[in-house]
């Protein structure tokens, strides 16, 4: 209960902002022009693209050079939550859909459905929060499963686990392996060596060949006399362009041993794994003044931290200072960067993506999606030749 104040704050805010999107969905969102792909795109040097899901069931490939929608594929299911991870060659988007239950793999070059996993079976119902990841060789897809056995007159919550799927199994794939895993996992990612990171109350690292799991970053379990228990909530596995697995947390720094929360200073921090080296770090990066949903370090400079919800903010990590902040036109749940780190893309909530200059936080423009809102979908950005 040490978090009471912030909890109320967060709750108020999310109630307000969520409502907006729900209502927008009900009244139908504004129209935008979709340019579908003219056949035979010329081969070109790698350019930035974004993949994002919006309602009711669209997977969009957006050219971030022209800000045009190249292709809009249909998912066989419903969009929510629309958590996206890209195959290492950035051709297949793996999407958690159908109300946190099924995973679809869509070839974004031709909209072909190349993979599906219907996680529930028999009388076992399975949900995954937003926790899907892919191995660096693209051969294995991982999900974190929350299973419940539905018996004729009662339910039985089962232990949570990591399920491993072979992507080559194609449609209606079944897990080839499962490993016991902690509860309360939200996001996951793999590093260059294939270690699977699980964003749980603490961050864990699993060897997906053996299921062996170790603690990577102590978070909720951390007991530091001068800080309150950390709180972290994210359902957005962003970070690939900065080569990081990252999530933000809130904490209060007490003035002294009395742990007086009214005199404590509220801070934002991040927990981060470098996906090349596997190096883990966690630190506070700035004052907590408003609620923020997602944040990332800038590609190429991890001392620059950016985060978003009602404002877009930039922090100097080592000095724990907010450097810049701009008010947004509406809330955006999720941010991401262009691969060179020069631009920021804000997505989620409604059906428009906003583009900002990463140096000046000047707004550069918008991309309108056709259809409903992106809600909690994850925008994935990558550079490739198409």
């Amino acid at each position: 209960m040490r978090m009471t104040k912030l909890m109320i704050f967060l709750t108020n805010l999310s109630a307000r902002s969520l409502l907006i999107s729900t209502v927008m969905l009900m009244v139908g969102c504004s129209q935008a022009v979709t340019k579908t792909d003219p056949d035979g795109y010329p081969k070109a040097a790698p350019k930035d693209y974004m993949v994002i899901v919006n309602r009711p069931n669209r997977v969009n490939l957006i050219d971030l050079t022209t800000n045009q929608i190249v292709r809009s594929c249909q998912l066989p299911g419903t969009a929510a939550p629309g958590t996206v991870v890209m195959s290492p060659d950035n051709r297949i988007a793996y999407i958690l859909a159908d109300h946190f239950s099924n995973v679809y793999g869509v070839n974004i070059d031709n909209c072909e459905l190349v993979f599906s996993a219907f996680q529930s079976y028999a009388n076992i119902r399975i949900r995954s929060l937003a926790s899907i990841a892919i191995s660096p060789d693209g051969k294995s897809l991982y999900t974190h499963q929350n299973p419940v056995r539905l018996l004729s007159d009662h339910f039985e919550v089962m232990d949570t686990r990591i399920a491993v799927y072979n992507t080559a199994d194609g449609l209606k794939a079944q897990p080839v392996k499962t490993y016991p895993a902690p509860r309360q996992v939200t996001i996951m990612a793999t590093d260059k060596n294939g270690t699977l990171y699980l964003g749980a109350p603490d961050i864990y690292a699993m060897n997906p060949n053996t299921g062996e799991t170790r603690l990577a970053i102590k978070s909720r379990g951390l007991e530091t006399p001068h800080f309150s228990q950390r709180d972290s909530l994210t359902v957005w596995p962003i970070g690939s362009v900065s080569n990081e697995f990252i999530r933000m947390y809130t904490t209060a720094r007490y003035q002294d041993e009395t742990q007086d929360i009214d005199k404590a200073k509220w801070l934002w921090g991040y927990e981060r794994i470098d996906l090349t080296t596997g190096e883990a770090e966690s630190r506070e990066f700035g004052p907590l003044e408003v609620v923020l949903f997602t944040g990332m370090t800038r590609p190429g400079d991890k001392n620059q931290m950016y985060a978003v919800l009602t404002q877009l903010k930039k922090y100097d990590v080592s000095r724990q200072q907010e450097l810049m902040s701009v008010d947004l036109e509406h809330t955006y749940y999720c941010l991401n960067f262009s691969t060179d780190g020069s631009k920021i893309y804000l997505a989620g909530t409604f059906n428009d993506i906003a583009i900002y200059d990463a140096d000046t936080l000047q707004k550069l423009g918008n991309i309108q999606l056709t259809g409903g809102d992106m809600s909690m979908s994850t925008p994935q950005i990558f550079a490739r030749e198409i």
Partner: protein
Amino acid sequence: MRKHLLISLFHGVVLTLLSSFAFSIQAGSPEQIIRNNCVGCHIPESDDKLSRISYQRRTPEGWEMTIARMQLMHHVRISDQEIPISDEIIQKLVKYFADRQGLAPSESANYRYILERRLNVVEQHPDAEFAVMCARCHSGARVALQRRTEQEWRHLVHFHLGQFPTSEYSAGGRDRNWFEVALNNTVPYLAKHYPLKTQAWTEWQKVKKPQLEGSWRLIGNQPGKGDFQGVMTAIETEKDNYKLSVSGYYANGDSLTGEGSAIVYTGYEWRSTLTLDTQVFNQVMAANGHGDEMSGRMFLRDHEETGIQLSATKMDGKSRVLGVMPNHIKAGTEQTLRLVGTALAGDIVLAKGLMITDTVSRDSENILLKVKAAKDLAVGNTDIKVGNSRLMNGLVVYDQVSHLEVEPSYAVARVGDNGGATRKTLASFQAVGYSAGVDGKPGTEDDLRIGYLPAQWSVRAFNAQAEKDQDVHFAGKMNKNTGIFTPAAAGPNPKRKYSTNNAGNLAVIATVQQGDKSVTGTGQLLVTVQRWNNPPIR
């Protein structure tokens, strides 16, 4: 309000339903309905018991909610077609279960606010862990109004996490190992405090249940409207079913008249639906053991927040003074007072210094008096006597209003309408006046509660954030005479920053004029978003 992001996100989850079971409901006895429709999923055991069902007790509203869930989630069917169970059949089952597996009066006594839809009651939980574990998505009363075996409490935890996976991810859940704590701490706690077998229930089952037919003298108060009194007649049409007629009046002369019907559950749980003038009201009352008093609330079916806190007294020939309207008089003034009672007869005796200057009218239920209070009259509670019956401390004599309290001190209103499915939830406030008492100092022990006073009402920003966001401008309008706040329309407001909705955090101010000095009191009003579902037990 208490819900965090993820809970809401999961709300839309459409479930993989157990569709392999198909049952047919045939109209008939409750036993037959149960045999035809519950058995199959629920397993018959010895002594006519059914798995799960026989190990739980709850209120009528509790049974209604559970049976509704059986229908919604588990597809209880009529024949092979998916026709919802008719209200009539649900009604039969609720009655059957509430009578056999209900709560004793003493078991429901502390949590009647939730049944009466008094939604501004701020719950106090003796156990902090219970409050976060079980009372952050819904009221703690929803839990405390059930009795179960330990195994049944455990099943309930599995149901929660199985059905609402976000229970362990949302704020108040992800700060701990929710599932482990629920099984290891909360389940034993619940089994200890809310066990299936209790002495209270064993005794209540044996007691001869009160007879509730007859005429009832109603007395109550409605925020924003004032004192209310009337008569309700109940004629038993079949066991535990009553036909009702009501004629009532507010202090301002407005009448409230009409008819309806009531059902009594568990021998004391009075539930009625009435059409009074043009509006539909529900009564939720509890009868006492003698069957000569009921108390509870009567509220608008479609605006549960608007209603009368009510008590009903059997008009059984016994003489009683039940109340005085208003219940206070200022020293040195003359005022009209209404005495409300049953079988009122005989001389009227007021405290010394209170002079009856005129008896305007009187019959056996109402006496209208003009009363003059002497200027130097001692401040305090006084008794009223009519014939042989006496109302203790029924009339307050005061000199000055020293301070006011706004009631409720904290209320929630909700935006609504605007083409959406959800109505606005209004908030109504009352000003309770206090006299400083003999020592002349407010805030001391001898302060005297005067009662509800007419006041002038206004709102202002509760804090700097609300000021900055112009909450007063956007959140809605306070009626300055009645204290009723009507929230603004639902939906995003493009005129607000981030197009947020018309939520707001307001201070509510009541002002009473004392000569040329004004006395004020302050409360808080949170204007927030709609609730998307409004089950009978929040």
